[in-house]
């Protein structure tokens, strides 16, 4: 199931409705739903935030995989930025020293079962899977 998304924050509602409709059609379990919503919205928000002048739409593809789902997000004419690469986010630092930047990617990596990144010809493709376990 595919959705072409206009690159603006207002599209978050369309994304939510699209994913929810997929979940309803397939009886997806709650432990899968929240992380998938979270990860897709975080990734999409980053794509909008860091490429505001890019007029290309973003492609969201969601399918069943075993008991869970597989999600693919493709972005066009963008710089290389590997979201699967581990970055230093010190979540054990005292509050005053906490840097909020990078928290989203930290949460993403901990919420999915598998996260892959592929970049070629200025096209990025992020694929992740999430099962109920």
């Amino acid at each position: 199931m595919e959705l072409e998304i206009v690159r603006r924050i207002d599209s978050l509602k369309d994304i939510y409705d699209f994913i929810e409709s997929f979940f309803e059609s397939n009886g997806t379990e709650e432990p899968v739903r929240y992380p998938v919503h979270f990860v897709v919205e975080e990734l999409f928000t980053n794509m909008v935030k860091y490429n505001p002048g890019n007029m290309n739409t973003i492609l969201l593809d969601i399918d069943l995989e075993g008991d869970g789902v597989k999600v693919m997000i493709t972005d066009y004419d963008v710089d290389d930025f590997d979201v699967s690469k581990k970055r230093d986010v010190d979540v054990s630092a005292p509050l005053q020293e906490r840097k909020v930047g990078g928290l989203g990617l930290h949460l993403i990596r901990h919420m999915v079962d598998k996260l892959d990144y592929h970049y070629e010809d200025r096209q990025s493709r992020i694929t992740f899977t999430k099962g109920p376990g």
Partner: protein
Amino acid sequence: MNIELESSQKGNGAVTLTIKGEIDMSSSSKVRAHLTDLFKGNQSAIVVDLSDVSYIDSSGIATLVEGLQWSHTSNKKFRLTGLAPMVKDVFEIARLLTVFEVYDSQEEALKGV
């Protein structure tokens, strides 16, 4: 996404901020604006009730972390209550459950403020 915010003064010098809906990139600025106003007030404590928040993203968490930082500089108490299980999971992964004062109910959060 739809979000509703309602603040209510309590007799003990505290104020509660009840948030309903989803806190994401498109709505976290409203939460931030509300918190900014509350921190300008004379209340000794701000209790944020998240019982009806079904979703929070990293921008929402960042807003609450900012509120906690403001509470330290303004010497006010800043407490959270009513975290749904999935929302609590996000706080746990970010290791924020030990940083915030988190309570199960508004009544408990308002004790001793």
